[in-house]
Each structure stands twice: as C-alpha cells, then as structure tokens.
C-alpha cells in the first residue's frame, strides 16, 4: 500500500515518568509554591503586613475555587459531562465541616458560661443549651438527627468526603445507567442542585434554613489565635489541597484512563464497542470530582465564615462552567486560570474596588454591569477563543510538528 513519508516520528517513549511527560504539572506546582511563599511573607499575620487578612482570605478562597474548577474541567473538559451540580457538592462539603465548627465552638462557649454557675452543668444540660443556641434562630431547640456527629471532627471530616461522594454515586448511577447524556444530563444535574438548595432553604431541614451556618471563621481549639494567623493557615491548606488535587487529576487524565475518558467525550458509542463500560467510567469521574469539590468547599467556607443555601443555587454551578470555558477546557491549568481570573475580577469589580466609568450620558456602575461584562466575555471566548485563556500557552510552547 502507499504510505506517506512525513517528518520522522517522535521518539517512541510511552514509558517515561509521569512528571517528565507533563512538564506543565511541575511548572504549576512550582508557581503555586512560590505564590504561597510570597503571600505568606507579605501577609499581615506572619510577614510584612502588605497583604491584609481579608485579602489573604480572598486568595485562599480563590485557591479553593481553582480546586473545584479543575474538578469541573475533568468532568466536563475531559469526560464531556457538563455537570451543573458540582457547586452543590462544594456546598455539601462546606456544610459538613460547618456543622462541626459551629457545634464545637458553641459548646465551648456554653461550657464556659455554665462553669460560672454554682452547680456544675450536666452533659444533658450542655447539649440542650448548645441545641437551643444553634437552632433558636429557626425556632427550635432540638438537635436534628443529622447533627448526631457534629461534635466529632473526624466524623464530620469523613462526611465532607462521604456526603458529596455518595450523592454523586447515587445520582450518577441512576443517570448514566439510563444513558442520559448531553443537555438532558445538564438539566438533570441542575434540577438536583435546585432541589437541594430549595430543600436547605426550609427551616425544618435541620441546617438552619436561609440563615445557614455562620461564625465558621472561628476555629474551635484555636479561638484565641488571631484571624490574621488563621487566615494564613487556611491559605496554606488551600494551596496544599490545590497542589495535591492538581497532581491527582493530572495523573488521572494523563495515562490511558485519560485517553478513555476523552474518547468517551468524543464518541461514547465507539468506546462501548471497544469493550469499555462507559457508564462505569463516567460514574467514577463524576464521583471522584464530586469528592474533590466537597473537600474544596470544606476549605472554602471556614475562610468565608458563612454558608447558606444560596451558595448552592444553580447559578453558582453555571459560573463554574463559565470559569472553565473562559480559562480553557481540557487543560487543568486553563481551569485554574479561568477560576482565579474571573473570580478575582468579580470580587474587584463588585467589591467596589474598580472605579466606575462615567460616559457623560451614562454611568457604568460595575456592581451592576459586572454580569454583563461576564456574559459578553463568555460569548466572546466561545466564539473567538474556543481554547480559552489557557490556549494562549499553545503559542508560547508551540511544539514543532
């Protein structure tokens, strides 16, 4: 048969180490490390004081958003499942850790108060006082069943992983088994998110309805440590989580597994005829990314200080998809860039940091116009730069064909 002779084939090196094959991973970890050191050195709590505690918190929260963005990129950019529900998993992780934070801190405060009385309080009295302190706001004084383990940090940490993981497993199993794909699956995930959010809005759900959980920035056991220090601790934890998450996902998508899930994205039916159980792969990806989203949420909300059901509303998950699209789908650092860029820009513009533009007849007030800008940006990226911001790196490190 005829055969085209093209450029010499690249060296056949299928067995090189993972990191050498993926130089972008080393770059990312390196830059993240440098960034962490710089922020620490300049922080109010541990360094020169150039970066305020509030800004350290914003940066730490941004790292958590980057972590959920890479999870979204794996499930959407690599596996082709446009999930509009990953922020629900993020929120559930936040609620799981928030329950412990709130319960344990309230318990400490109550014990201190009761200790001043003449008669030492019984455990029963402490538990009742804690319950009525937490749930007084929704007119109840009983501790709901889901708060059974709220006093135990290990149990709530386990729930950070288990609740999002099991929900994703159940939901994914039902959806993928029925071969729901494409836009129908997106709608289904959005419906799940909306249902969960509406459920949590109710006062009798056991998670304080629309009040949500608050005071999460106060860490039991470290109540006399100033926020300036705690903010740096959480910043570090967020950076470590992002670094580990990046390594995990880069490893998952680099090898044959990545090959299979990208193949599922491009032609699901063909993968089935190769003998792969497509539903199993989707379920695996959906669940592992949900777990990582839950961990990201558990690190985010202690920095935010408050969580309420509005955080879980479908719009949050849509933003997530927008970040990933703007940053560049199908490459992990693209998702990080998109999440960091858009969310920081958003807090700058809506936080009153940006000067409003006076056009004479018309005044652009960024707090109102930010969403318009985001929408236009999203349309522009979709139309003109389908590879997103991350696609710019292709010009920098263009591999010679």
């Amino acid at each position: 048969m005829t055969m085209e002779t093209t450029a010499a084939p690249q060296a056949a090196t299928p067995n090189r180490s993972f990191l050498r094959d993926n130089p972008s991973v080393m770059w990312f970890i390196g830059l993240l490390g440098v960034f962490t050191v710089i922020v620490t050195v300049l922080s109010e709590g541990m360094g020169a004081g150039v970066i305020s505690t509030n800004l350290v918190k914003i940066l730490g929260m941004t790292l958590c958003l980057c972590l959920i963005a890479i999870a979204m990129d794996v499930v959407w950019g690599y596996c082709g499942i446009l999930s509009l529900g990953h922020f629900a998993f993020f929120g559930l992780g936040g609620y799981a850790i928030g329950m412990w934070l709130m319960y344990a801190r309230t318990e400490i405060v109550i014990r201190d108060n009761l200790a001043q009385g003449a008669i030492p309080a019984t455990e029963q009295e402490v538990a009742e006082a804690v319950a009525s302190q937490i749930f007084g706001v929704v007119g109840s004084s009983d501790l709901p069943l889901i708060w059974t383990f709220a006093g135990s940090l290990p149990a709530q940490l386990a729930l950070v992983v288990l609740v999002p993981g099991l929900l994703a497993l159940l939901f994914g199993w039902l959806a993928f088994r029925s071969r729901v794909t494409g836009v129908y699956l997106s709608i289904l995930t959005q419906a799940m998110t909306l249902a969960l959010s509406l459920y949590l809005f109710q006062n009798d759900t056991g998670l304080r309805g629309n009040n949500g959980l608050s005071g999460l920035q106060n860490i039991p056991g470290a109540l006399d440590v100033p926020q300036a220090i705690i903010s740096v601790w959480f910043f570090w934890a967020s950076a470590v989580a992002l670094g580990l998450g990046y390594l995990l996902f880069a490893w998952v998508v680099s090898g044959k597994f990545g090959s299979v899930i990208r193949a599922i994205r491009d032609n699901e039916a063909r993968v089935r005829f190769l003998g792969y159980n497509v539903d199993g792969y989707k379920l695996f990806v959906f669940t592992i990314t949900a777990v990582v989203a839950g961990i990201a949420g558990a690190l985010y909300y202690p920095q935010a200080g408050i969580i309420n059901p509005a955080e879980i509303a479908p719009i949050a998950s849509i933003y997530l998809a927008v970040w990933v699209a703007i940053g560049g789908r199908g490459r992990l650092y693209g998702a990080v860039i998109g999440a960091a860029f858009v969310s920081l820009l958003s807090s700058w513009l809506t936080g009153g940091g940006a000067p409003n533009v006076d056009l004479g007849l018309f005044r652009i007030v960024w707090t109102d116009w930010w969403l318009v800008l985001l929408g236009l940006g999203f349309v522009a990226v979709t139309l003109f730069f389908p590879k997103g911001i991350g696609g710019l790196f292709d010009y920098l490190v263009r591999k010679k064909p």
Partner: protein
Amino acid sequence: MTLLEVSGVSVTFDGFRAINNLSIAIGEPELRAVIGPNGAGKTTFMDIVTGKTRPDTGRVLWGELSVDLVKMSESQIAKAGIGRKFQKPTVFEDQTVRANLSMALKNKRGPFAVLAWKATAADNQRIVELADEVGLTERLEHRAGDLSHGQKQWLEIGMLLAQDPRLLLVDEPAAGMTPAEREHTTDLLKRAAQTRAVVVIEHDMEFIRRLDCRVTVLHEGSVLAEGSLDHVTKNQQVIDVYLGR
C-alpha cells in the same frame, strides 16, 4: 464449530421490518461475505450482534456455552470477543495513533485497572506490530485526525485486530481505498480468518471475489441465498433482486 448462531431474529423500526426472521450461522474459523441491496438489513444485522439494536424476537447465541448476546450490553459483547469496524471510519481523532491502538489492546477494561495500567514491553511490541501491519508505523505519534481517509480505515482495522476478537464484523472495509490498499485489505482479512471468524459486508463484487469465501445474500431482512460467489450469482432470485424485476 459454530461460533455465532443467529436464529429467527426480527426487528421492526416504526413499522418497517428491517430484519425478518433472519437465521445465520458463522463457524470458527471462517471468512464470510454478506452482500445485498441497500436496505437489505446488512448493517442492522451487525447492530444486533454487537448489541446496538435489540431484536424484537429471536436469539443470538455465542460460543461454546451458547450465551444469548441479546441480554448483554455493548461493552460486555465486545469483551466476550466480538470486534466491529464501522462503515464510516470512527477513530478518536483528537488522540494519537498510538493512544487509539493502546485503548483497543486486549487488556483489562475496568476503570481501576486502566488507571493503574502501564504499557508493558509486550504491549509496546504489539502496538508496533499492529502499526506495521496496517502501514502506520511512521504515524504512531501523530493525531489520528490528521490521517487520510484510507489511513483512518486502516487504523480502525488495526484497532479491531488489537482487540484480538474471535469474531470480526467488518462493514465496508474497502470504501475510500485505492486499488492497492484494497488488495492489502483482502490479504489482511484472509489472514485474520485463518484463526478466527470474519464477517465482511461489502458492495464491491470484485472485492468479494478476491476474498474467495462463502457468501450470504440478504434481501428484505432475511437470507435469500448462501454459497460460493459463483453459486449465488447464478441464483435467479439473486439476479432478480439485484437487477430489479
């Protein structure tokens, strides 16, 4: 021995009977050509065997244990040893030729096994052999999307061989190939058929003649004639169907 036995299978699409009480038996090893006019049900036959389409009635029995494929999913059927090449070449264009072949290689298919998978020397050796067999050695590290139409056909045949199936279902393998490539394809299919069962759907009579095998003629969803090419082309019914009554 009989490897695949399709018996009494019927399928209706919106009132149209695509397959009508079809019965075909394929041995192992065997090379079999399936011909027939458009709409005769050739591709639907493959859809049924591979689990893409569920028949309304009938059974599709497979292997020594005579398991019924009708109850199995596409991926289970593929794992049982049935490989398929589609009419339109469907390779994963975004990935390299090597990645395409590597995915098709006969290895464990579960998510956890694949996650831990590392190419062994034997795997790499096999990929090189396959690439050589289908003339894509020089193209191993190229994107499959950059291949010509004929090369994509080849890659898909390579992927089929990589699966090492007991039964190959090949739908119009020669479409879009040059005469030299067609010749190579017939050689390859004949060689494959020495150790396994191969079923080829083809329109090109010259190609079928070169395959030199038993031919099944389908018409309106059932078998019209079966035998050598000379035998079936002398059949009056077959002539009527092909030339119009």
